[in-house]
């Protein structure tokens, strides 16, 4: 990468660390450190909420998915606006007015300490591990693309984030998120404009090519439990997932608890309701345009440069033969694409014939790529899926000087945002739900502040260590993601039970365990069931079991108290 691009990247990292540290002034107690003294405006909190969800995986993985599979992934977010509105009138006002630091604190008031501690522990377990994978995903890509050691990549992403989060607390995290979001959205828009300028066809022609490849299929109305992303799994499963994520996950709850008032907290969440789907569509559109760009510009046979070098070295003849086939197939596809883009109408006979020819040639290109990926798997003995490398390779090979640096800085910014929110919330739950609850109930503000900063540093170091291992064991990332999906629906179920007055603590606690067990069984016995449905299964099981157990536990309680009275 050109030195100017590196200056931009290093300059941006330095700026956000400085800005984060600047925000730490005046933070002298837990309310300041974990809730920013509830002084943050709704738009800053709203941008921070959106930034927290937009990790580096979104910037490189989702755009890559757009390039290979089209925009169907947008269905994943269809339930989000519904969930935001529901939370805005239910849980947000309650938690904000209850003056709690964590969502789990409320569960002790409503149920008992064991339900609070179990849900808080599950959060620490799943988020602690996932925080490592959030660092690992971009670190692996940066290592391959820039030739860095994995430790170096993890340190470059992790250390600046830990510094400003540890010292500045939620205020630093929120205000840095605001700046990072501006950079990220600006970089995405600049990328779209650059791609439109660089394409040798008109935007309408580009859409015809993308449409012919099936990349604009946003909706799948089939009611299939095994298709990962359908309209129905997005609307139903997605609503449950988003209710759980935004209503019960401390990394999100902490953001809106820092808002000035209930109304500002609601408005901050509604910002996501309005803008999340358009933003996600923009991210996927970048991927689709990169796909169209590579129809006319020769794409790498393997986007992962390390795998490409290793296959070239181990199987030179096979690599040469595949490259020749690839060039031939690409040439045929580009010619068909030009005919399609230049047709007078997208629906006349010439255009239909060109679209059919384009699809045929595209199948040929994909077949050669699949063969190359199989070779990479055989040679490297690693997963050769290279979706995450498409955008970084495009950025480094084809973006003009300066813009490449801005986009790499935006990928780093996305990684830092997501990690900072996780570290801040992990520290809050560790201190409030465990240290302050079980070890030291009465302490000075300065003592708790020191412990909170130490907890942030601990989770930062833990995440970096997990990231290093996760990077070497690629499948671990998937395992951790599936692991997290065991809990989400079940924890939402406990909060739903809290709405039902007659349900008591023991019934809620047993239901939570039952919900996780059922989701675990579904995951292992019916692995084909798409993970979005796990959230529905978990929540429904917890509520169902809770309602069944409540009269049973009430009867037991009555008989025990009656027995004691008799005795």
């Amino acid at each position, binding site marked *: 990468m050109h030195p100017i691009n590196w200056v931009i990247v290093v300059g941006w990292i330095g700026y956000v660390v400085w800005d984060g540290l600047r925000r730490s002034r005046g933070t002298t107690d837990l309310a300041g450190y974990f809730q920013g003294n509830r002084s943050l405006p709704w738009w800053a909190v709203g941008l921070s909420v959106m930034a927290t969800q937009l990790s580096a995986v979104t910037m490189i993985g989702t755009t890559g998915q757009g390039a290979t599979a089209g*925009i169907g992934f*947008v269905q994943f977010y*269809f339930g989000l*606006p519904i969930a*935001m*509105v529901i939370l*805005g*009138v*239910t*849980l947000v*006002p*309650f938690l904000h*007015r*209850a003056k709690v630091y964590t969502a789990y604190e*409320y569960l002790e*008031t*409503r*149920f*008992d300490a064991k339900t609070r501690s179990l849900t808080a522990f599950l959060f620490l377990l799943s988020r602690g591990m996932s925080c490592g994978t959030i660092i690992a995903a971009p670190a692996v890509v940066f290592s391959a693309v820039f030739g860095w050691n994995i430790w170096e990549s993890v340190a470059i992403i992790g250390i600046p984030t830990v510094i400003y989060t540890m010292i500045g607390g939620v205020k630093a995290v929120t205000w840095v998120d605001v700046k990072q979001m501006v950079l990220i959205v600006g970089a995405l828009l600049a990328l779209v404009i650059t791609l439109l300028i660089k394409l040798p066809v008109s935007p309408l022609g580009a*859409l*015809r090519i*993308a*449409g*012919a*490849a*099936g990349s*604009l*299929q*946003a*909706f799948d109305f089939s009611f299939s439990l095994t298709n990962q992303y359908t309209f129905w799994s997005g609307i139903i499963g997605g609503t449950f997932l988003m209710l759980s994520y935004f209503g019960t996950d401390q990394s999100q709850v902490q953001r809106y608890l820092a808002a000035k008032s*209930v109304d500002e907290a609601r408005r901050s969440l*509604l910002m996501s*309701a*309005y803008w999340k*789907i*358009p933003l996600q*569509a923009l991210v996927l559109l970048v991927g689709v345009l990169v796909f169209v760009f590579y129809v006319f510009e020769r794409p790498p046979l393997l986007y992962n440069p390390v795998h490409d070098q290793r296959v070239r070295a181990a199987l030179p003849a096979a690599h040469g033969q595949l490259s020749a086939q690839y060039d031939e197939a690409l040439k045929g596809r580009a010619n068909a694409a030009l005919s399609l883009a230049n047709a007078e109408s*997208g629906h006349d006979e010439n255009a239909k014939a060109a*679209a059919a020819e384009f*699809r045929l040639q595209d199948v040929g290109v994909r077949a050669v790529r699949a063969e190359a990926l199989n070779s990479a798997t055989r040679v490297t003995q690693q997963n050769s899926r290279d979706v995450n490398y498409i955008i970084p390779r495009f950025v480094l090979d084809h973006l003009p000087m300066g813009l490449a640096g801005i986009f790499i800085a935006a990928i780093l910014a996305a990684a830092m945002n997501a990690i900072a929110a996780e570290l801040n919330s992990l520290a809050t739950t560790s201190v409030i739900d465990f240290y302050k609850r079980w070890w030291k109930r009465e302490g000075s503000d300065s003592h708790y502040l020191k412990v909170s900063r130490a907890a942030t540093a601990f989770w930062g170091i833990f995440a970096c260590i997990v990231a290093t291992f996760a990077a070497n064991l690629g499948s671990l990332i998937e395992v951790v993601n599936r692991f997290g999906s065991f809990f989400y629906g079940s924890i939402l179920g406990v*909060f739903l039970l*809290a*709405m*039902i*007055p007659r349900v*008591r*603590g023991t019934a809620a606690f047993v239901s939570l365990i039952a919900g996780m067990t059922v989701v675990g069984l579904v995951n292992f016995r019916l692995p084909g069931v798409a993970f979005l449905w796990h959230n529905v299964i978990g929540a429904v099981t917890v509520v169902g079991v809770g309602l069944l157990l409540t009269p049973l536990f009430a009867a037991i309680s009555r008989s025990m108290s009656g027995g004691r009275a008799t005795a």
Partner: protein
Amino acid sequence: MSPKDIDPAFSGPATNAESDAQRFRRTLIRVLAMQVVALGLLYWLQTAFKP
């Protein structure tokens, strides 16, 4: 304090039933309108450039 003394979450301090319901309806309509526009655009893209 026993669990019986504690209100469940959604009849707790947030309750201002009438204004909350009105606010919910207004917000729901606005958010749904925005989503209808966004999803309508995506659906148009899908059908207009159908392979």
